[in-house]
């Protein structure tokens, strides 16, 4: 089975984001980067599928040259080869999906497993856009995945509970939390990853125009909440809620 997964290089999610004074973006000096956490679930699931069914895991990133680090991390976890579609442009999800669609057309994987959203842009669009551009079925927000007889059975986290959907392969699956526990790369894995193939392409090589359909005009910090009050007892809390906040 040929399995395709993706990784995005994102700012460390536990870091405080600072915005440039001219509101044109975030301050990147001194910022640490890592693999998008949802992609860790996608990569892990791709490797587990290979371990169960055999085959090959291809890991793709669309982004700057530095994203080879995140690709190497996925290779160290157990993916077989990497593809970087290199660009420094600011991308919307649509451009990423159209680039990935072209990679999928060339690689013809049996299944595509990717993170449901990136923890920086928080858009939750790429997998669904990719499925639409390729006219393939989709199963988003997966917390469980089983593949048999050319179909995937996917448990999905949805409003009001959970749901189960079957999709015929090839299909796009997007990983939610609790799909698995991503493994750490072992030292031998890290050594091996250095020798695994990693191709670099550009969007132009793939014939994809990456001009965004959604342009960001301004970055701002949200309104801060005013400092609160520490109360000393339950009675004091009830008093504040009734007489000051007037919410009960």
């Amino acid at each position, binding site marked *: 089975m040929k399995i395709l997964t993706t990784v995005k290089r994102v700012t460390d999610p536990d870091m*405080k*984001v600072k915005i440039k004074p001219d509101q044109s973006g*975030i301050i990147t000096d001194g910022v640490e980067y890592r693999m998008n956490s*949802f992609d860790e679930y996608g990569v892990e699931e791709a490797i587990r599928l290979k371990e169960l069914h055999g085959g090959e895991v291809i890991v793709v990133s669309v982004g700057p040259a530095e994203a080879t680090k995140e690709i190497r991390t996925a290779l160290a976890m157990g993916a077989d080869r990497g593809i970087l579609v290199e660009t420094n442009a600011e991308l919307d999800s*649509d451009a990423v999906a159209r680039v990935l669609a072209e990679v999928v057309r060339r690689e013809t994987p049996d299944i595509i497993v990717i993170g449901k*959203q990136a*923890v*920086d*842009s*928080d*858009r*939750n*669009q*790429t*997998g*669904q*856009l990719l499925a*639409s*551009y390729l006219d393939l079925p*989709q199963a*988003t*927000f997966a917390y469980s995945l089983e593949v048999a007889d050319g179909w995937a*059975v996917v448990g999905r986290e949805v*409003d*009001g*509970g*959970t*749901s*189960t*959907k*079957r*999709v*015929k392969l090839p*299909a796009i699956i997007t990983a*939610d*939390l609790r799909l698995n526990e991503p493994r750490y790369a072992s030292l031998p894995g890290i050594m091996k990853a250095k020798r695994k193939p990693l191709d670099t392409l550009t969007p132009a090589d793939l014939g994809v125009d990456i*001009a*965004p*359909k*959604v*342009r*960001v*005009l301004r*970055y*701002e910090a*949200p309104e801060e*909440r005013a400092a*609160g*009050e*520490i*109360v000393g007892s*339950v*009675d004091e*809390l*009830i008093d504040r*809620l*009734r007489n000051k*906040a007037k*919410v*009960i």
Partner: protein
Amino acid sequence: MANVLVVAEHLDGKLRKVTLPTITFAQQAAAVTGGQVYVLVLGSGVDAAVEEVSRYGAAKVLYANSPVFSDYLAETYTPAIVKAARETGSTLVCTPSSTTGKDLLPRVAAKLDAGMVSDAIEVFESDGLKFRRPLWAGNVVTTVHVTTPNKAVTVRTTDFDAPAEGAACPVESFDAGVAPTDTAQFVSFEQVKSERPELTDANVVVAGGRGLKSGENFQMIMDLADVLGGAVGASRAAVDSGYAPNDWQIGQTGKVVAPNLYFAVAISGAIQHLAGMKGSQTIVAINTNPEAPIFQVADYGLVADAFQVVPELTQKLKQVL
């Protein structure tokens, strides 16, 4: 024509409330584009939902009552929505930012060659339509412009009120012309049944964290919620630990809530959790650790052991409410 199409959501034949703030968003967008608001209801047995949604200020409600739509599938809903958008002259298609909306709308956007905005919290006129949306777990808000003639937007429903209820608008059957798909099958929906209000439209939310140490201990969270007529939520850590169902998760990757009153009980307040609740009007934090980040967003903090003060709070509220 630059009309706006809202895709309604329903469950068990009833309109889901998240549809209503989405109509408000659509009305605000239509006021900028000079168009009208259409609502599309897809399903089977949707008559009650159609009747209800017709009373909230849309120009027209279109509905397709068909076995093809009896279970939601992005694969079958997408061509129907694309057709409805074209036939109604809608250049903006919007859904609530629910799991269904998030699953569905990008698929529609690609077919309409539409740029898509996720989680819009504001729409306004400034040399055309502009939108504001949060990202980086709510630590940044961007103002964005969609360059394509067609646009798709999921709406963060906690940032818009429901429209006023009024006289019913015309409703019209819509021929979606969609055949069943042979590549995707709905299997089942395991609903978490609850008598409590939905998290996303409750006036009061009581949420528990990993500090509660077990699923059984969530009983005190439920007891407090019930005294206040509220919904129950949880942090990711509590859900990951198996103390609470996934449907209760509040945060960047779970639900976003903005009730009048939010209780964070034994929740430390990771930025991913704050992203889902810091729009609440009044926030109460109960935690043994005075350094917990949750206190930085709380209006009222109580540095105490939840096991002692939550039952006490529930008892005393019973007496005064």
